[in-house]
Every structure is written in structure tokens, then in C-alpha cells.
């Protein structure tokens, strides 16, 4: 699960990481007041208006704006709340922006990258840092791997201060900056563990030029990104409450409510499969035979007839779908349940597009019998003998 930047900032601030003052607004009218509040709190005149969406590329899209007056803040807010944001990371039609973060501007002496994630290879959480902050870390990793510092985190002991110090010195920090950065790293690693994160990233972490009570500069988190382990949300009530359904694909949400795992894609062949691996493989073989999958849909092992019927409703609600492939290898899932759901969906929604069905495994005979009996009612249906046959048939049917 992803959260917005302003929510990540809240979690960081709670963990003890200093962030510049900020306010969240949802209407243009609140922009001027928010600007005044954050700038007076920080004693500056510069502020930044940032669109809160679950997609990157905001700066280049013009959805991160520096402002120096309440009027500029209002104008920036009006633009962002009345235009869709289009970036390489959004769908082509862009995303609607519903919330803005207005944060006090700060002077930056240097930018750093700091993150905690789980390293699958070592099965440990790992702290990652780089003195090349504010840019895409993947780029740094590819072009200059030596610029990335890593510290493995002990699963029970957590990140140790000496490790954080090593990183701070490695980043080239000095004087009082070191202690401040160490506190940020320990706080970030602690929050990662406590909140069941899958990514906790501060980019950039910055050091300001010398100011009043910080003669060596102040260490601050400017932008933050937190992703969470969906499997742990049952024990992370506060994080779970941060879920923003407006940021999700409505069809994916609908599928979720029935325990289905659905991801919308750009193609024309709808797929309904049991098991994630087989669902991915089914997409692969559709593509191999020249088709394009319209979705990933794993109905899982224990879906009811009703849930599977809902799966068909979701697939058929996609106007781009010109053919449907059902691929079931029954283990826990019984083929007769799938067959009955096909019959239900045919009655309720109707298959106006070609439907290719491949059934194998548990109760396959009964499943085939149900479909054979309903054949007259589903004229676009054709059975397939195996996976390759099924993919070939559906790709041919949609042309």
C-alpha cells in the first residue's frame, strides 16, 4: 500500500525526523492561509506547493511549484486542482489532483538520499544512502554504484548508532550534522520496522546552510515516500486508515472486495485464471501468440461462485475487451465452480465477445459437463484442450 507524501511526512515527524512546516489543502480558497501559516512558522517567505498523487514526475509536469506570495500560492493551487497531472508515470489521460501539500521553503546546501527497504538476497532490512540526493536512485545505482552506501540491519537489534555514524561520515557530513543525520537514520529504520514498511525513503534529505542555532546547518527531510506491506495492515490500523481509495483503479478496488486480485492492463484479451504464477504465465502466452492481455486476474484458490461471477462482470465492464480467456488448473479451486460462474455471467451480462475456456484439474469432468449443457446459451464459447491451444484460439478470435 502507498500513502501520500503528506502522510509520510506525518509518520516521519512522529518518529522524530525534522521536516519543514507544512499544511494540506483540498480547495483553492485555503491556499493563501496555508502559505501564510507555514511561512510565518518557518520565518521565511518561500514556500512550495506540491500535488499529492501516487505518481512520480511531479516536478517536470509542473505540479511542484515554488511560490513567494499568497497570490502565487493561490494561482499554483488553482492550476493543480483544476488540471490533470500527466507524467511518464501516470496513465496517458493523467491523474486528478485532490490534495496539495504547502510546505515552507528552505535553503539547501546539499542534498542526500536515504532509504530503508528489505533486501531479498540477504533477507535483511537494509539502509541505503547516497550523497547524490534529489535524483533517481536507480540511476545512481546503475551509473555510479560506489556512490551508494549500504548497511545491513540486524533483524532483532535494529540499526546500530555506529552503523549510522559510518554512513554519515561516508556521506561527507561533519560537525553537528553527523549527530543530526544519525538520529534521522535511526528514526527511519525504527519506523520502517515498527510500521511494517516495504519502503521508507527520504529524497532529498538536506543540510541547510548555517542558521541561528545550527552553526553547521540543519538536517531536514524534504520529500518522503512510504510503502507498506499489505500483509501486515491487520496490525497497522493507523497506516491502514491512511488508505486513499481515490488513488486506486475503481475496478481493482471492486475486485479486492471479492478477494480477487485484478490489475487493469492496456490490451484486448480479458483473462480469468487461478493462481498468480499461472495468471502471469497466461498473459505471457497470450502475448506470445500475438494477443495483448487486458488484465491480470487471479481468482485464487478459495473464491466462491459469486466472486468468480464478479470477476467476469469486471472483465466484461472493460470496453477494450474483445475476447476472454479462462484458464483454470483446479487444485483447491474446483472446475465446476468456474463453469457455473461462466453460466451465471452469461445469463447476467452475456458474452458478446469470443470466450475460450480451458479447464483442467479438480472436478474437470463436472465442469465440462456444465459447460456442454449450457453451450446453446453461450454461442461465443469454445473449449480449448490445453494452454497453447487456448491462447492460440483467443488470439485468433480477436484478430
Amino acid at each position, binding site marked *: 500500500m502507498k500513502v501520500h507524501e503528506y502522510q509520510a511526512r506525518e509518520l516521519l515527524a512522529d518518529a522524530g525526523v525534522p521536516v519543514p512546516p507544512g499544511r494540506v489543502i483540498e480547495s483553492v480558497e485555503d491556499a493563501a492561509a496555508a502559505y501564510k501559516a507555514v511561512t510565518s512558522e518557518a520565518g521565511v517567505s518561500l514556500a512550495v506547493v506540491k500535488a499529492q498523487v501516487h505518481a512520480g514526475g511531479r516536478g517536470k509536469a509542473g505540479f511542484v511549484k515554488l511560490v513567494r506570495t499568497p497570490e502565487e500560492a493561490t494561482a499554483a493551487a488553482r492550476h493543480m486542482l483544476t488540471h490533470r497531472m500527466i507524467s511518464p508515470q501516470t496513465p496517458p489521460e493523467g491523474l486528478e489532483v485532490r490534495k496539495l501539500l504547502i510546505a515552507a521553503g528552505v535553503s539547501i546546501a546539499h542534498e542526500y538520499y536515504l532509504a530503508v527497504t528489505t533486501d531479498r538476497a540477504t533477507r535483511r532490512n537494509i539502509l541505503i544512502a547516497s550523497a547524490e540526493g534529489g535524483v533517481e536512485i536507480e540511476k545512481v545505482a546503475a551509473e555510479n554504484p560506489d556512490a551508494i552506501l549500504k548497511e545491513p540491519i540486524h533483524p532483532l537489534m535494529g540499526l546500530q548508532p555506529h552503523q549510522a555514524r559510518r554512513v554519515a561520515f561516508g556521506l561527507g557530513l561533519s560537525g553537528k550534522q553527523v549527530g543530526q543525520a544519525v538520529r534521522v537514520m535511526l528514526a527511519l529504520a525504527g519506523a520502517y520496522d515498527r510500521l511494517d514498511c516495504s519502503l521508507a525513503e527520504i529524497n532529498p534529505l538536506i543540510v541547510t546552510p548555517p542558521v541561528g542555532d545550527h552553526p553547521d546547518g540543519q538536517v531536514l527531510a524534504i520529500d518522503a515516500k512510504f510503502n507498506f506491506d499489505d500483509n501486515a495492515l491487520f496490525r497497522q490500523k493507523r497506516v491502514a486508515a491512511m488508505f486513499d481509495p481515490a488513488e486506486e483503479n475503481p475496478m481493482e478496488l471492486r475486485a479486492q472486495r471479492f478477494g480477487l486480485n485484478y490489475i487493469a492492463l492496456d490490451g484486448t484479451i480479458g483473462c480469468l*485464471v487461478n493462481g498468480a504464477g499461472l495468471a502471469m504465465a497466461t498473459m505471457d502466452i497470450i502475448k506470445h501468440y500475438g494477443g495483448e492481455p487486458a488484465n491480470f486476474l487471479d481468482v485464487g484458490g478459495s473464491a466462491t461462485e459469486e466472486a468468480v461471477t464478479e470477476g467476469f462482470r469486471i472483465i466484461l465492464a472493460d470496453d477494450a475487451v474483445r475476447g476472454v480467456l479462462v484458464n483454470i488448473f483446479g487444485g483447491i479451486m474446483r472446475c465446476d465452480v468456474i463453469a457455473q460462474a461462466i453460466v451465471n455471467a452469461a445469463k447476467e451480462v452475456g458474452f458478446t465477445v469470443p470466450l475460450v475456456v480451458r479447464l483442467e484439474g479438480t472436478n474437470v469432468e463436472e465442469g465440462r459437463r456444465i459447460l456442454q449443457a449450457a453451450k446453446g446459451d453461450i454461442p461465443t464459447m469454445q473449449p480449448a484442450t490445453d494452454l497453447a491451444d487456448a491462447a492460440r484460439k483467443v488470439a485468433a478470435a480477436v484478430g
Partner: protein
Amino acid sequence: MAIFIDADTRVICQGITGSFGALHTKGCLHYGTKLVGGVTPGKGGSADANGLPIYDTVRDAAGATGADATMIFVPPPFAADAVLEAADAGLRVICCITEGVPVRDMVRTRAALDEINQGRPASERQVLIGPNCPGVITPGPKSGSGESASDPYTRSGCKIGIMPGYIHTHASEAESGLAVGIVSRSGTLTYEAVWQTSNAGLGQTTCVGIGGDPVRGVGFIECLERFQADPDTAGVLMIGEIGGTDEEEAAAWAKAHMTKPLAAFIAGRTAPPGRRMGHAGAIIAGGQGDAESKIAALRANGFEIAETPADMGAAMARAMGLG
């Protein structure tokens, strides 16, 4: 011969009174698995629908039944504890079927298991299979209908998990007389692979579903190591998917240590980057773990590649010179 489990393996079920635990306990009994009891805290002293004794703790169950393996169906919040309880009781094979275990729990549990196994030779390690996996099966020759525990599908096989037993084939009943090992990160895709190898005239020595989670128990390499050492395993079919670098590491390991024919399929060639496709582990992030780089690594290290998921059985046969 086989790996991890065989006809003599005695198995208990943790979470035997839950709906999934009860359903698959029955399925394993019908297959012919020596399921000897179960654990549900607070229900010790009673028996399940099949007459199997239920115990309060895994130690009690292991002590009374002589079990050396367990099948875990405990709900996700308690699954890691169930794994550690099984390890504490000394069970040799710990198979965790549960889907949805938090990664943090697995990071800690795996660290604890690694500590327990430190310094032990492979044969003495306590092995975790899963979580989020279909389980492990060593097929036996067909002996009956499999419709009841008294008329089991096989009398010398062992199934620990949720896979349909009848799709598997023992070497003695395979057209070629040969059997292969199968190791996979996916559930139903494994059934597909088993079905295809059976149809290609091959049996299976053991099929291991290692699970789809980013942090788990045994990986590809531990399974390859055992398949290489197992005299009855004539080849190995490995089924990977996008995410992580396990397949790349397994490919390099196999080149240095394996002499048996190898085949592989990688699912997720067409998956969009950054999206989690059902398995928590199946995500392509930061250009790492995409299908093409895995396929290239496997090919370079001597694996015959199944170009499509319909080609898995044939790829295995080609690798063995049977195609």
C-alpha cells in the same frame, strides 16, 4: 529416493481444525500421506473428523506420534510463531502453506531458523518450505481410487500440501521410466508443469513449491543441491518468476555444481514494471528481476528454456535428450 520427504515421513497438521487445515488433512490422507495427528491449542485430547489425535502443542504432538514433518495452515498473524514452534519441537520438514504472512515476521523467523541450522550439514537441517506455497510432494505408484483414507491414491507417496495428487506420476508408471525434480515459486503453474511432464512421459521424484514471498524458507539452490544428490532424479525443471535475483543466483550455482539436465520457465515476461502481480515477490523494481535478464542468465548457464508456459514439459524432455 526423493528429496525432503518420502513414504516414511510422518506428518502432523498445525491448524488441523480450521476449515483449510481440515480440508487438506483429508486430501493428504486420501493421497496416502502418513498424517498422524494435528495441533490446535486448547483442543488437545480430542480428535479430528478423520479420527486423528489433536494436541495442544507441537512438542506434545511430535512426542506422541513420532512426527518429523508438519503442514501449517495457521492464519497469517500467527503463522511465524507456528513455524518457530515446529522448529523448537525439532521437526525436520516445516511446510507453511499460509498465504499473507507479513515480511517482517519472515525476516525474523528466517534469521532464527538460520541460527538453529548454523553449522549443521544439509541432511540435518530443519527445513522450512514456504510460506505462501502449495507444499511438497513425493509421488508414489498408484494403488487405489484416492477417495478415502482406506483406499489411498498411493501407498508409498507423501503429499504435504494443497496440490491435486493425481496429476503426479511415479517413475515406475512413466513412459520413459525416468523421473525429474520440480521446484517452483508458483502454485498452479507448478501443477501445469507437473501435468506437462507427466504427459511428456516423465515422472516426478519430488515437487517443491518454495512459495511466492520475498523472504521465505528453502530457495532454488537448496532444492537443486538435493536433486543433484538424489540418484533417482534424472533432471530438474525450475519455474521462476519476475522479482528478486534468485533465478540468476540459482543459474550460476547450477553451472558450478550440477551435472543433470536442467530446464526452466520464467513467468512474467509481459508484466508491467512496479506492479505487484499477486505474489508479494513478483514485482519488477528498479530494473532488477525482469524476466529477460533471468532467462538470459539461465540460458547462459545450461538451462533449456521453455519459451511459453505450454512448453515446460517439452523443454524438460529436450534437455534430457528425449524430445
